[in-house]
């Protein structure tokens, strides 16, 4: 089985927008991969005029929020850095235990990369300005700039959601069969760890587990 990878379009968001944007994207992806019995729940974003759909599973919501909190903490410690969250779906396969491997194995069959570029507030603008794309134009009024920027982010977010839907529609064969009583496939949300090198190590570990090279599309 191939591991399908989807690199979502990069979004430029401000710090206070991270939570809403990530919730929207992650829940949308999981909803498309929650092929068990669900009662869909419409959720309106507060910052944007977008409605996304959740599975209605409380545990799922909690776990996603927890990962988002970790991500936000990481962003605060690493300002002016492009960041990436990886949502992976896997199958659990049992294998012969050995000295180096566990009894079970995770076979990743799908990975979603959410790319964010968290812009800093102009007051906290650091010296490494080439990474943080400052949107504020001193020439425009603050309100107009905010609204135009907000519209841009909303349009970009919509594009990302359409991208998810398109990907989901185009790639269906790799999706494992649905198990009875299971609402959604096992998943994993990976955020960058405290150091970039650790993040890279996570990627390597995943490659070893899946047995397939990560394909960047």
């Amino acid at each position, binding site marked *: 089985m191939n591991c399908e990878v989807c690199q979502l379009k990069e979004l430029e968001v401000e710090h206070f927008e991270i939570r809403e944007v990530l919730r929207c994207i992650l829940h949308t992806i999981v909803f*498309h991969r929650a*092929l068990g*019995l669900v*009662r869909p729940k419409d959720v309106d974003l507060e910052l944007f005029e977008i409605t*996304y*759909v959740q599975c209605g599973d409380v545990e799922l919501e909690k776990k996603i929020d927890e990962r988002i909190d970790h991500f936000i903490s990481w962003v605060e410690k690493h300002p002016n850095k492009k960041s990436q969250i990886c949502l992976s779906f896997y199958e659990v396969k049992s294998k012969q235990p050995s000295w180096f491997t566990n009894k079970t194995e995770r076979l990743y069959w799908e990975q979603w990369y959410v790319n964010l570029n968290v812009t800093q507030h102009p007051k906290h603008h650091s010296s490494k300005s080439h990474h943080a794309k400052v949107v504020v134009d001193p020439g425009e009024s603050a309100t107009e700039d905010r609204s135009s920027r907000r519209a841009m982010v909303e349009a970009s977010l919509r594009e990302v959601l359409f991208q998810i839907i398109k990907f989901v529609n185009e790639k*269906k064969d790799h999706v494992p*069969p649905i198990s009875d009583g299971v609402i959604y496939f096992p998943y994993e949300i990976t955020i960058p760890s405290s150091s970039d090198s650790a993040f890279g190590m996570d990627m390597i570990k995943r490659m070893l587990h899946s047995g397939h090279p990560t394909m960047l599309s």
Partner: protein
Amino acid sequence: MEMDRESGKLEQIVSQFRSKILHVILNSRIPSLHHHYQQQEPLSLARVRKSDKWFNLVLGDRAAALENLNFSLRNLLDPMIIDIILVHHSSCSSSLDNLYTPSAAVGSPSDETVIERWVVQYDCARVNATPSGADTSSSYKKTYKKSIILLRSLFAQMRLLPAYRIFRQLSSLSQTYNVDLVYKVSSFSHPFSREEEGAMKEYSFVPVEAFPGRLCVSVTYRTTLSDFNLEPLVSLPSNIITDYVGSPTTDPMRSFPSEKGFHATSFSIRGARPPSPSPFQRPHSWSSGFHKGLPLMQNQSLAGSPPAYRTSPKPYDVVSPQSDIYGNRIRNRLPTLQQATAYDEYQLSPPFSASASPSPPAYLSGANPVVAHHCSETAPVTIPFPLTGRNSFHLSLNSSDPSRHSLPPLSPRSSKHDASSQESPSGIRSYRKLEALRAGESPSGLSINYSAQKMVRDTKDDSGRFSGLLSSSGSPRIGFSRSSSRLSFQDDMDDCEFSCPFDVDDIDVSDSPASQNVEGKKALDFTAQSVPVGKKSQDAAVGMLVHMLRTAPPLRQDPSCYSTHSSKTVGYEGGVGTASGFFMPCKTADALEELKSYREMRDLLLSKSGTRVVRKEEM
């Protein structure tokens, strides 16, 4: 056979898929169906229906319309075309015009635009192909799984298309608009015009293999709906009728001596258009021509002017069916409502009004005593005693502070007029009456029974006078409330026992002139017994009276107290007439005289009841 069983399953999947898609689309686009879904109790996943389990998507009950549609489109090979149509009601004719001619409103032209077209088709090109056994065994499972994924993506995409925002706005129960979303399901459709195609975009979902054919879903949608201005049908601004004349039982032919200006009033009507730029004018309550418009007619206007309707000769009606129901209720309730507002209004009557100079009402026998007491724009006239046994309003003085004369507190606006208005001596006599009542009653206090406490309160719409009085008395405000809350307001109006002190039916007007005479005589009789006046200046006396009125505690309802005292009052007064409110003396001397007579009457009552009268040298 195995193949037949498999094909049967596949057919079932295709059939249920069409039903499910229809359910998803209409639930996400048609407000009425969405409301049906919302009204259902939220089901736990353990109690889902069989239909919900299909494609693992719980959508709740299907409306009956959907069931019928499913039945009519059972031919799986026919495409199922679902048009989402935006019906834009014509805005060239105002809803007020439509109210004039209700029949025209029904047939009024409206624009219909297909904003989305969903096409669900089972493309069975390879009808004669015979799959191998291995293919069929797992094909329906894969088909089912992929159908689930397709439905998920369709469900999510419906929230991202432009039509969803309109759907959400129309689904809002707090507002009605000039557009509506309807649907049409058929197996054929008229092609779009070039112009329409230019404004639309098509998106096709990846077909799902469903051997021997495939399930195809596509949508053609308008990329922008900004051309369709959603105009909320705002409620008309609600105003308190400050110059309401009287109840429907008032003689419409009764005239007043002078005709004053017009006041614009309006009602909140859900679904009605905003009022025309020139607000409707209605005659002043004590104007000569006003009562010709009374009583309320069933077909009188609801928007912009009260039942006087002299300026709106055509009967009103409401446009939409929804409003019709609401409108009818408005009409039925309106007399009571206006009656209610009028009573309270008269309580605050003309001295407290910011309106024009006084003009006397014609205080005729059989006339509306409420109107008679309305003397802000009248010349000084004799005002009868406010209370009789037949009076419906309940008064009980708060005698916690005997010196305060527990009169209802004045509104801030009314307070301004207290010192400056030059009302007739009738106002003073009314105080005498109240004082007399107070003298004979129990310590429970005097209050006006605001049975309208049951009414919906609309704090935003009250006039300053209303709010002032009611807030100071602790009683609820009476006013128009918007939209659906007014329905309950109207119902409450009917339900509550409205025993406002100025309830017309319970006030014996005919006794008023006699009562005035009696009162006057008795006042004179008591004069000899009264405390000498000249010890303090008249101005000081007036000032003290004003202070008394201002510091009077809130009125409260005390029916038992009222019934007791009203009888005493009747006995004492000899059938003296009607309710009065709270009138300020027009002249200082009048005020003083009124006060004196009031005190004397109180003393007399107390002496009769065996209560020791403590006379104070206040003056």
